[in-house]
């Protein structure tokens, strides 16, 4: 198991670092953009826009987690599927489900670190200009976007592991549907009540990923 972690770390560290750097650059942009707004506009108007009109100053962040999740899935599983390299790992003395779940654990830890960084940066940015209530609201508003990141990662794996093209399209539609549901709300705290149900649906992706993995092992049957 340690060897698998090590193998995945060696494979992912460069691209993971690049994705993290990309997220950091985006968060810096988010901070500078909000600082610029406070420079050119009266603060009381920005408070009004944020709390009453419902303007989300950090709305640009919403698709970043999904892109991050999808990129990480491709970085981790595209090389495994190229020329069927995953089959080599299948010779290890570990069950197929165990093998895939270890891969997913590594990917989810990597994704979790990046998403936690995004949330921390969001809290720091909003907290610099607004009081605590706005920070809590921003974190709750961004929660379904983070969930979309997990859905995009697991959905990406679901698509990549599937050996049959038409079923890849089905898996892509399911993953896309889930990511879309996570982005349905356009207002702050709008998804607070929907989050448990969305989390449950995204949670179903975890065991579902084992299905295409088994089909891959069995040669696409």
């Amino acid at each position: 198991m340690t060897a698998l972690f090590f193998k995945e770390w060696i494979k992912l560290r460069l691209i993971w670092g690049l994705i993290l750097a990309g997220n950091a650059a985006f968060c810096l942009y988010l901070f500078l953009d909000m600082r610029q707004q406070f420079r050119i506009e009266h603060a009381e108007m920005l408070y009004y826009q944020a709390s009453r009109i419902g303007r989300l100053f950090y709305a640009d962040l919403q698709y970043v987690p999904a892109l991050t999740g999808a990129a990480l899935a491709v970085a981790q599983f595209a090389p495994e599927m190229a020329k069927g390299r995953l089959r080599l790992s299948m010779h290890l003395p570990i069950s197929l489900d165990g093998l895939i779940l270890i891969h997913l654990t590594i990917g989810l830890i990597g994704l979790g670190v990046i998403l936690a960084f995004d949330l921390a940066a969001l809290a720091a940015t909003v907290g610099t200009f607004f009081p605590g209530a706005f920070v809590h609201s921003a974190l709750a508003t961004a929660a379904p976007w983070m969930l979309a990141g997990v859905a995009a990662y697991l959905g990406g794996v679901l698509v990549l592991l599937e050996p049959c093209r038409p079923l890849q399209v089905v898996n892509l539609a399911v993953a896309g549907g889930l990511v879309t549901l996570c982005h349905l709300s356009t207002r702050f705290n709008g998804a607070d009540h929907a989050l448990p149900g969305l989390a449950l649906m995204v949670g179903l992706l975890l065991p579902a990923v084992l299905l295409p993995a088994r089909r891959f092992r069995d040669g696409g049957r």
Partner: protein
Amino acid sequence: MLCLTPRFAFAALVMLVLAIAVPAAYTLVFGVEVAPTQLFYSPVRKAFVFREHHGAHDFIYADQHGERFDRRTFETQIPFIYYRNMDLWGLLPITLDGQTFDAVTMRDTRQILELAPREIRDRRPEIDVYPLLEANPGRARLQFPEDVFRMTADAMEFLNVDTNTVDTDLTTRFTMALTAAGFAFPAGLVAGKPTILKPLDEGYFLVDAAGAVFHVKRVDGRPQVVRTPIPTDLGIRHIKVSETRSRAFYGLLLTDDARLFLITYDAYRLVPLPVESYDPDRMAYKLLLNPMQATAVFGDEAMIHAVAMTRDFQPFDRYARPVPGTADMVYARLARWLFPYTVHLDEHNGGYLTWRLTDHGWTGVAGIGIALLTLLAVERWRRSPWRAQWPKLVLVVAGGLFGLLACLLLPERRAID
């Protein structure tokens, strides 16, 4: 069973996504929008008049007795609503019951108050930070102050918006003024209209920990706090403040048991409004005021109700009629057969995305039967062994068309799965 788990998880996921997406796509392609019925009391006709939409461009204008008229005639029946058109058509001033009204009088004496479910405090998200406007701005328009306040466990705390730091001086002054008036922290409800797009500012109504209602304003930079005589045991759910130049009513007060009151400028006296058949979680309540009478109108997707009242809010006539809606249209009837239920994830009557399940009763069950027969036909054509089909049967029984589609989209199960 364990070896079924990935298939079950995937099938359940596909079915859930389909249960949301397919009815939404169906409605997008075949759905018909029907505008809500508009119902008024006509001071001209002394009867209720309405505009009813039956889809496309089919509008009916009529009164409660069934007499139909054209759009222009309809508008002349409710002159306090369409006073500007009446003025353009040269029909003003108008004399009703011995009183004569011109356009200016009509404009200044009419008022509309509305409380929609999505406005109620517990049905929408809110960031509990508010601007307290200067009620005497000394200029033509209201303007936002450079501070906001929030109610903490023991203070009305002001923050400077430029520095995002606590303004100790303002915090102390307003907290002391509240405490001196008998305010018991923490606050239970903060109700105001934090916008400068209104003619004047009446500050905020604060409900304290004991249920007492306090009225707080900023006048010439100083706190003005009034402990109102509104009963503490009312069980206040929401207060909607609605400032107008007429200065007759501060707004509407809704209680936990769905009673609705007007808060008057006359020593904060509460005027009870008719609420029979009113459900604040489903219905928007509209109160139309003019110098002759008041009309309360409220309803949902099925029925609309109206109560006509004298100017001192004594009901003298009531009327209710079904809303045409879309339920009887062909596409809606077909949807009830096709889909056993619909999963909605939307902002229904509120500001939060919520999960809702709409079941379609016996027609939905019949739809499940049709889906089952379709599945059996497909599997017979595929010459699939019957024993291997029970998980699919379970899926179709649970999801009807959605389950059937999930079965067709799922890869065929191998013995090794």
